[in-house]
């Protein structure tokens, strides 16, 4: 693929235009096709761009810390978002407070933009909680591990939003969009394709946001599809667009367009953010078995955070003292996450019987009673 705003060729060999506002070296692109997106990002002055840089730096520091915590045995598993910060922060910062997000399991950058305390994400990965935050409070649902299943929930939620009359009112504090995040691999699942069908048929206020990080664990794009994701929607009647997912400004602008379409009653959209998973699939994975170091190196040179720094420096918007402060803030975040996670207690064993049902269920109550009695047999400190 090329680095400027000319058509990019994805791994499937199909040429598909890719919206890009900044080149990997931080230059503004001039391709006239992206003028509408340029306009959408035009209000982002250097102060705003520095905020986006800060978001990404904080998310990366958190991600690094979580990786170390897993290595130290404090977490069972960790799924890094390394390299995908621009797609996540750019799209997340385009959201309105009332919009609702259904994430997959790697959307730590989006979680940050929704005001989720990042340390709480680690409850799931430490094995003390299946969730970790109040989805309703942040309008950011639990992570979903069963690939693609949540895209249908997002569609249904959007159908509810539609029925509530909070689409197309013209009031920006009222009109609501729903976003489902998923990966390139997920596009193969029946559920994701059914989400496209239901969203299209209902003209649901939905944005299907696919981070194409080019791998589903070990499998490259051509094992999942032969037509770029951005064009998948066509047959369903869902407009699609490919954006450079390592360009935070383009990710912001493209998402904002799709969100506006949804909120105004224009129906669903599919966004393909073309990016790269710079880390392993999870801490259990070994990418050297299925991809080359050259490919990894090539993408390190397209680091989304470095791109913004380069742009700010190029345009005189960089401030060393301020950047040093952010780096310090990131270190503090890491330290706080470390502290928080290490002191996260395991839940009381008997809590496993809570929240299975809303009202008592005899099978659960029998088991709960058995467990309480069984546990009391060890109360005098007997060996277990």
């Amino acid at each position: 693929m090329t680095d400027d705003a000319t058509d990019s060729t994805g791994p499937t060999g199909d040429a598909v235009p890719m919206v890009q506002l900044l080149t990997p070296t931080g230059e503004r692109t001039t391709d006239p096709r992206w003028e509408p997106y340029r306009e959408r990002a035009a209000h982002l002055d250097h102060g705003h761009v520095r905020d986006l840089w800060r978001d990404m730096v904080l998310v990366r520091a958190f991600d690094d810390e979580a990786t170390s915590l897993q290595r130290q045995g404090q977490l069972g598993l960790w799924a890094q978002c390394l390299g995908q910060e621009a797609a996540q922060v750019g799209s997340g910062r385009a959201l309105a407070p009332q919009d609702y997000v259904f994430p997959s399991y790697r959307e730590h950058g989006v979680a940050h933009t929704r005001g989720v305390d990042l340390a709480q994400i680690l409850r799931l990965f430490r094995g003390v909680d299946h969730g970790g935050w109040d989805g309703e409070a942040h309008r950011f649902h639990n992570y979903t591990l069963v690939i693609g299943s949540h895209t249908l929930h997002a569609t249904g939620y959007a159908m509810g939003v539609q029925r509530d009359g909070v689409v197309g009112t013209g009031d920006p504090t009222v009109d609501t969009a729903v976003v489902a995040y998923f990966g390139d691999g997920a596009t193969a699942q029946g559920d994701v394709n059914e989400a496209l069908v239901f969203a299209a048929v209902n003209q649901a206020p939905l944005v299907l946001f696919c981070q194409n990080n080019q791998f589903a664990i070990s499998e490259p794009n051509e094992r999942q599809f032969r037509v770029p994701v951005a064009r998948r929607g066509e047959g369903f009647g869902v407009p699609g667009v490919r954006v450079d997912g390592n360009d935070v400004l383009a990710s912001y602008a493209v998402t904002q367009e799709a969100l506006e379409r949804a909120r105004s009653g224009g129906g669903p959209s599919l966004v393909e953010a073309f990016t790269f998973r710079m880390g392993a699939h999870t801490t259990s994975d070994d990418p050297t078995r299925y991809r080359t170091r050259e490919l990894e190196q090539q993408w390190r040179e397209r680091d989304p955070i470095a791109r913004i720094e380069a742009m700010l420096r190029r345009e005189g918007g960089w401030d060393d003292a301020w950047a040093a402060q952010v780096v310090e803030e990131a270190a503090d975040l890491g330290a706080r996450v470390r502290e928080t996670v290490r002191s996260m207690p395991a839940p009381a064993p008997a809590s496993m019987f809570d929240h299975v049902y809303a009202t008592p269920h005899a099978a659960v109550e029998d088991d709960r009673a058995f467990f309480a009695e069984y546990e009391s047999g060890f109360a005098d400190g007997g060996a277990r």
Partner: protein
Amino acid sequence: MTTTSTQPAIEAQVAPFPTGTTTLPLAKAITLAMRQALAEDPKVLVMGEDVGRLGGVFRVTDGLQAEFGEDRVVDTPLAESGIVGTAIGLAMRGYRSVLEIQFDGFIFPAFDQITTQLAKMRYRTSGRVSLPIVIRVPYGGGIGAVEHHSESPEALFAHTAGLRVVSPSNPADAYRMLREAIASPDPVLFLEPKGRYWDKGPVEVAPLALPAAGAPTAYDAIGHETLDRAVVVRPGTDLTLVAYGPSVHVALAAAAAAAEEGRSLEVVDLRTISPIDFPTVVESARRTGRCVVVHEAPVFHGAGAEVAARVTEECFFSLEAPVLRVGGFHTPYPVAKIEHDYLPGLDRVLDAVDRSLAF
């Protein structure tokens, strides 16, 4: 099929086939059974997510794609319904697929294909269509995983007529049972105790039977020695512990602990959950007069209920105590930090043994 430049070259390091008795971890005993099947029958395929280049997330298919190629060891799209559904069509065209579902909790997108199509095709076609498909699933808990990675869904499948459901507990059985499962003309759900993947044990390797070109593979000759047959893995006189898969290890540990207190427990490894070898179980329970069933799956509506009911029906006058069950609770699989409170471990089994003996 093409390989892209983004992928490192595979180095095919084809080791000679082992012969005689060799020591292998359970995971590698399964690899060997697949490797042998791929070598013996060009119609055998291995398919699943990440099974090719990566060799599976547990490395159970490691080396198979390098040896047999991308047409026979297939990295499928990320869609379980598609994996099972296409294996059905391939079977109708004579291909024998060994499928991998990456984790227990991810079999459900394929539930429709498995229960409404795979299980019923022979019946619906009056026996004309045979679907010799094996679905391998790493299952069970105790590995500190996040949700959907530690479940034991066997009862959901055992309740479906048309499927055979099996689970080995040790490397020798894993090898032998997978060979027989691949040979079976029926669909087999092959549940692998992932927590015991790296337990080593002796495996008696069958001689490689390469048919003459064009000749059909002699599946009839592979026999039916482990599938459908329970086995007494530790003899005893006071009580029968019935288990399968990962719980056999727990049952054996319980029997060893009980022996120190002078109690003689017999352990029966069911190996197959559908069908259940009731004659072996009943014979044992009649002899010892007591029976405790152990599995990780929830007790409520679980396989243990089937064992308990049948033992009660057939051994009523020989029993000294009601048949007891030890297993998971009627909750979703809990978070990792408390999974050992959920799982039927040594102490919970011994507790049930005490209650039975106290009767």
